[in-house]
């Protein structure tokens, strides 16, 4: 692979990148002092860097092309995770390992790690919620964070004005978000594909702007502070215990969510969603009420977001509108797509990776978000179908030969 031709191509690529990054990386101007700094050393870094990256990419491609292809066999069994899940003994083992880790996690690691993990688990649930809308029903929703905000503000406001507790509001927040989902869904669900995407994006922004501007109602950008943390059967916990308690709550939430979403997927409704995603017209011909099915998907997704909103407000004890920007929606969507659309395991992995990565990339300090963006692109380029893509349930008809 290290032929002369390759070498030449590598050189050309690195030359191109030197040109491309020249003004921004090399020149630094100070318009007030009217001085120009030429950072020529960056040219060398850029050239060498891209040259090496080019060969790394070529090397990966080379390995991929020349790998013996067990494709047929792999397609049937799916990825390694699926294979483990299909084998009952291995599955029990895996579940046991995960459960043990989940139980002992906060006792082994610091409260910072626990806190981060709780956040990641919240995103697992959010991802699973959005997965209903995007992954199963195929409705691209770029304003998912609006429902999250509805849940968070429902709890914050009711807690602030009426002193209602976490457990009382939890279902209320979810229902409130579901109600907003239906309200939005009615007019816009007949839009298709990307038109729906932009309308939901707009809706998300509208909710945030209203929270920001309508100060009498939401306290505006200053936000609401001192929201009560979840109580433990009426006992107020200290901060340390509260962090751990919230963590265990989230673990339970995740388990419940996985259970429900899994059952939904196999239900009549779930089948209808998947069918709707694949072919709307055929679906209608089969007698599925398109509008109702979509609305249910929308409001169910919103419901989970609302529940997590309540959880979010209780965990941070502070909400303000700046937590609910478009970027948040984009991250949740990235979780779903990166994990593998429609795949529950995939979404879990996606959430853990995307939320834990920036935290652990803190070591890179200011390069953190640069790396995050780059990794997002690379993951999509190398695994466009997501980390763990969903395997279709297939039925094979095995003809049993009559014994004679």
């Amino acid at each position, binding site marked *: 692979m290290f032929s002369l031709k390759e070498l030449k191509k590598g050189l050309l690529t690195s030359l191109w990148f030197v040109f491309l990054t020249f003004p921004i990386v090399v020149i630094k101007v100070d318009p007030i002092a009217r001085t120009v700094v030429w950072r020529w050393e960056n040219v060398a870094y850029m050239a060498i860097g891209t040259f090496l990256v080019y060969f790394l990419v070529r090397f990966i491609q080379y390995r991929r092309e020349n790998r013996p292809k067990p494709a047929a066999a792999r397609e049937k069994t799916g990825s390694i995770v699926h294979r483990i899940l299909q084998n009952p003994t291995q599955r029990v083992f895996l579940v046991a390992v995960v459960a043990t880790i989940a139980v002992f996690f906060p006792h082994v690691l610091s409260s*910072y790690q626990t806190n981060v993990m709780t956040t990641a688990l919240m995103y697992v649930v959010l991802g699973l919620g959005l997965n209903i809308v995007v992954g199963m029903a195929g409705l691209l929703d770029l304003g998912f964070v609006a429902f999250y905000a509805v849940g968070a503000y429902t709890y914050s406001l009711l807690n602030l004005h009426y002193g209602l507790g976490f457990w009382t509001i939890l279902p209320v927040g979810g229902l409130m978000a579901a109600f907003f989902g239906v309200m939005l869904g009615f007019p816009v669900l007949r839009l298709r594909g990307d038109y729906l995407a932009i309308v939901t994006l707009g809706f998300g922004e509208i909710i945030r702007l209203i929270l920001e501007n309508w100060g009498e109602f939401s306290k*505006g950008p200053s936000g609401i502070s001192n929201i009560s943390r979840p109580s433990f059967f*009426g*006992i107020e916990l200290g901060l340390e215990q509260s962090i*751990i308690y919230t963590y265990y709550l989230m673990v339970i939430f995740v388990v419940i969510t996985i259970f429900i979403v899994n059952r939904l997927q196999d239900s009549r409704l779930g089948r209808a969603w998947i069918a709707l995603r694949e072919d709307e017209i055929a679906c209608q011909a089969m007698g599925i009420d398109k509008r109702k099915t979509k609305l249910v998907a929308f409001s169910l997704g919103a419901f989970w977001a609302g529940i997590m909103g309540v959880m979010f407000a209780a965990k941070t004890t502070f909400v303000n509108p700046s937590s609910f920007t478009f970027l948040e929606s984009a991250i949740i969507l990235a979780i779903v797509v990166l994990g593998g659309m429609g795949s529950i395991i995939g979404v879990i992995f996606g959430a853990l990776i995307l939320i834990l990565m920036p935290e652990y990339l803190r070591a890179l*300090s*200011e390069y953190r978000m640069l790396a995050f963006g780059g990794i997002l692109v690379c993951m999509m380029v190398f695994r466009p179908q997501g980390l763990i893509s969903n395997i279709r349930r297939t039925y094979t008809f095995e003809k049993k030969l009559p014994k004679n």
Partner: protein
Amino acid sequence: MKLTLSGKFLSTAACVLMALSAPAMGVAGDTIKFGVAGPHSGDLASYGLPTVNAAKLVIDKVNANGGINGKKVEMLIEDDVCKPEISTNTATKLVSDGAEVVLGHICSGATIAAMPIYKNAGILVVSPSATSDELTLSGNYPNFFRTIAPNAAQSPAMIDFAVDKLGLTKIAIIHDKGDYGKPLAEGAKKHVEQKGKGEVVLFEGITPGAMDYSAIVQKIKQSGAQVVVFGGYHPEASKIVTIMKKKRLDTAFVSDDGVKDDTFIKVAGESAEGVYAAGPQDNSANPLAAEAKEAHKKAFGSDPGAFFEGAYAATVAMLNAIDKADSTKLEDLKKVLQSEKVDTPVGKINFNEKGDAIGVGFSMYVVEKGKYVVVK
């Protein structure tokens, strides 16, 4: 809470839970761990990074002189992107990494979200920039101090200046809908109403980062305002004054500490001339301020950014407190901070029992020939 039988059982359960979970708290080693938190990436990074620089300069200097009581100071820098939900993680991280004092956070929202965690761990927090009234005036956060004056002091200063000093009574109040600008603008509006002199002819929020503010400038013109009072940061302010100049509108412009930043003058250039801004009292005569600025230029090759002086002062005050108290315990540090005046770039300061700096007053500045000068 009534302690019934089941309550007892549950509290025992909670205790067990607590015992099981007792995490290893950071043990003070042979360095003093100095946390710095704020936005170091994302759209608000320009407000957070100068604070890091300020802390670096002070700490390097202290360490070069042998540290404090024989201990070197070690910096722990954590990013919170100015987001409340991230800042709780940042705070927990700092606490579990063993930070003994924290400089930050920068944005009020992120600070409020993080405070309960520091409060619980008994860690002193000094912010150079969080101006929300709640942080000090509510009394909820006994471990919070700041080197910037609260909003409650700033909005009346702006209005009194516009009405009494400039004699302009028709006021347009504009804000950036942010957690700094909007409360400031609301406070200003309330103050005008209480004052009984002057009249608010326009009260509007603008979208920060929007492409163009022509429409709002036309609206200011239409309202017949004699003075614009702006609550927010310098990027929006410089956009507005630039467009005002382009539209040949010479209404007076009075703004806040977020605008009293040299970047504002650099960016707005000629349009900045004649803009008034409230800011911490004049420090240019203060040799420490000049020295800090020089040190920054030498170390980083550029002029310091937003909140630099406040952050520098905060770091000096914190390290002084640690030195004098010979401890990092909150109560000891508080005692020193509240009782002893210390020389900083923002003047000789100590703190009142609420946590606000005494001696950090407001002066009004005006831009003259590309420099902020104090209005006499």
